[in-house]
């Protein structure tokens, strides 16, 4: 009976397999189309010349300049304050470290609008520390400072998390041996830890920068949408959308291109880091 039944059954399995593959292909095609079409459409609706003319407006320039200024300021602050934090978190273990790790990552998953509300509650005029700031004659809300704070808050964790992982992946023996070779902890940090963690740090910096450039929710809630003062590029897109779709599309295309270039650089750095890690492993 089995000898009679088996060829038939195997053919039926073949048909089933084909149906399965088809279904899988369809699912993948749908999700890829859903992910790529909106992004690609920004580029295909307009030619490059048209894109450029639409971008060539004072409002767009102003917003672009503000975005670059605030994003790079944020990045500087993130690296300056985030690197020591990441290093410390990679080196120590204590009770509750996991909770701290999750806490540091919270801004990644928290809705940006909520982050904006939180910033208002602390740094706003009527906020927890608002009084302190106004006592010194500083009013952060509705200024570029607020924009920087919103961007730093939202995009900082990307750098801190990647950098911590990069420090953690450095062999623990290396800094120990460096000390016995007469080099201080400070010297060891610069001569061993930073060079070896650099690919991860660069990747984290690029992710943070991309996130800061695109920041919308926290900025509009905490800093407002004042052209020339707090209207960053994403906010300008939102504003343009209400009057001129073409300008909004052109600006979106520029932002998307920047983000793509940054992400591409990250993947290049990651590939290099992976291959050099392989070299490291080979000899041992």
């Amino acid at each position, binding site marked *: 009976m089995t000898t009679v039944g088996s060829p038939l059954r195997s053919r039926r399995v073949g048909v089933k397999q084909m149906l399965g593959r088809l279904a899988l292909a369809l699912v993948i095609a749908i999700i890829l189309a859903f992910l790529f079409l909106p992004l690609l459409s920004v580029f295909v609706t307009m030619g490059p010349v048209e894109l450029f003319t639409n971008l060539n407006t004072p409002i767009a320039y102003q917003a672009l300049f503000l975005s670059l200024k605030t994003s790079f300021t944020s990045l500087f602050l993130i690296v300056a304050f985030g690197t020591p934090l990441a290093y410390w978190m990679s080196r120590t273990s204590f009770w509750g470290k996991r909770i701290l790790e999750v806490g540091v990552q919270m801004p990644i998953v928290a809705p940006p609008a909520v982050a904006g509300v939180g910033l208002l509650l602390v740094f706003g005029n009527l906020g927890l520390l608002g009084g302190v700031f106004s006592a010194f004659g500083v009013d952060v809300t509705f200024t570029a400072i607020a924009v920087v704070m919103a961007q730093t808050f939202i995009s900082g964790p990307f750098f801190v998390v990647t950098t911590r992982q990069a420090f953690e992946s450095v062999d623990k023996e290396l800094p120990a041996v460096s000390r016995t*070779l*007469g080099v201080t902890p400070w010297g060891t940090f610069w001569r061993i830890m930073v060079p070896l963690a650099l690919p991860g740090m660069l990747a984290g910096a690029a992710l943070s920068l991309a996130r800061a450039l695109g920041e919308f929710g926290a900025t509009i809630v905490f800093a407002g949408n004042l052209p020339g003062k707090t209207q960053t590029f994403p906010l300008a897109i939102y504003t343009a959308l209400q009057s001129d779709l073409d300008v909004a599309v052109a600006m979106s295309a520029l932002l998307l291109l920047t983000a793509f270039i940054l992400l591409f650089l990250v993947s290049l750095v990651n590939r290099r880091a992976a291959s050099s890690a392989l070299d490291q492993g080979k000899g*041992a």
Partner: protein
Amino acid sequence: MLAFSVRKRLRAFTLDLSLEIGTETHVLIGHSGCGKSTTLRILAGLMDPDQGRVELDGRVLLDTKERGRTVLPEDRDVGYLVQSYALFPHLSVTDNIAYGISRLDKGEREERVEEALDHVGVRHLARAMPGSLSGGEQQRVALARALVRRPRFFLLDEPLSALDISTRVRVRGELKTILQGLSIPTIVVTHDYEDARVLGDRIAVMDSGKIVQTGTAEEVARRPASAFVAAFTDTNLVGIEDGRKMAFDPWRVSVAREPAGGEHEWRIEIQDMARLGAFVRMHLGGSEGPSLLADVPADKMGREAYSLGETVYACVAPDDVRFVAPPGTQDEMGPHEKENS
């Protein structure tokens, strides 16, 4: 002279040992996790003991009784070689060796690096990156990197265990030559008796954080103070009625199917056999009685064709037996001996 006495609570036991080491190579041998590596980390200054004092040529490196009396690792003039060699992967061989002498002026630095490259025989690798080196080459570069600083004492943590068997014997010989050329206190940590025998002027056997026996390799192998030490040196150690023990070498044991009627004879089961050159090493034992090692010549093995699980008679001639006094009585064993099983 390096003299230290340290005590530190570890998870399963308390590390507690004292040693004085002249300009010689002293091997600490023990199973992994017996506290050998921890001892080296404490001496290098990478870890603090609960209590202890470390003194090098009269200079106090650490004294827990005087608060704050700790010399940092970077100021200890220590050479520290780890099992993985820990070469800095982003630096060339030359830059790795020059890493610890960056404060010297350029001329002297280059001179010393050149000297070190020649000393360990890696001149041809000067520009190579660590990732492209074999295990033996990595070890030589790591040695050069440590020795180029002219340390005043040298600590080597399992310097050979990252190597495969084929290169190990050669590298061990090279290492011995280099260590003999140094005249500073040197401690080598290993779990392998053969490494200890070749490299060490003296050996200290460690178990659970304590030194069980010290002596030359020869002394330790001839008169193991405990079954633990005997197992390391592949020496047979059997207790006899009056509390003494007798030690004898596996190649002095003869195995036969019929009893020979000697003074020291055991009826015993063959539990394992392994070929070792011209011998077959038998692991003999039973539910009661001693466990023995016996080296049976391969040609005899071929004639007799013993099989696993077979019961045989093992005997050793009285002349080949060395009596070891139980701990706490007279003679020649060191002060650290202790009963252990």
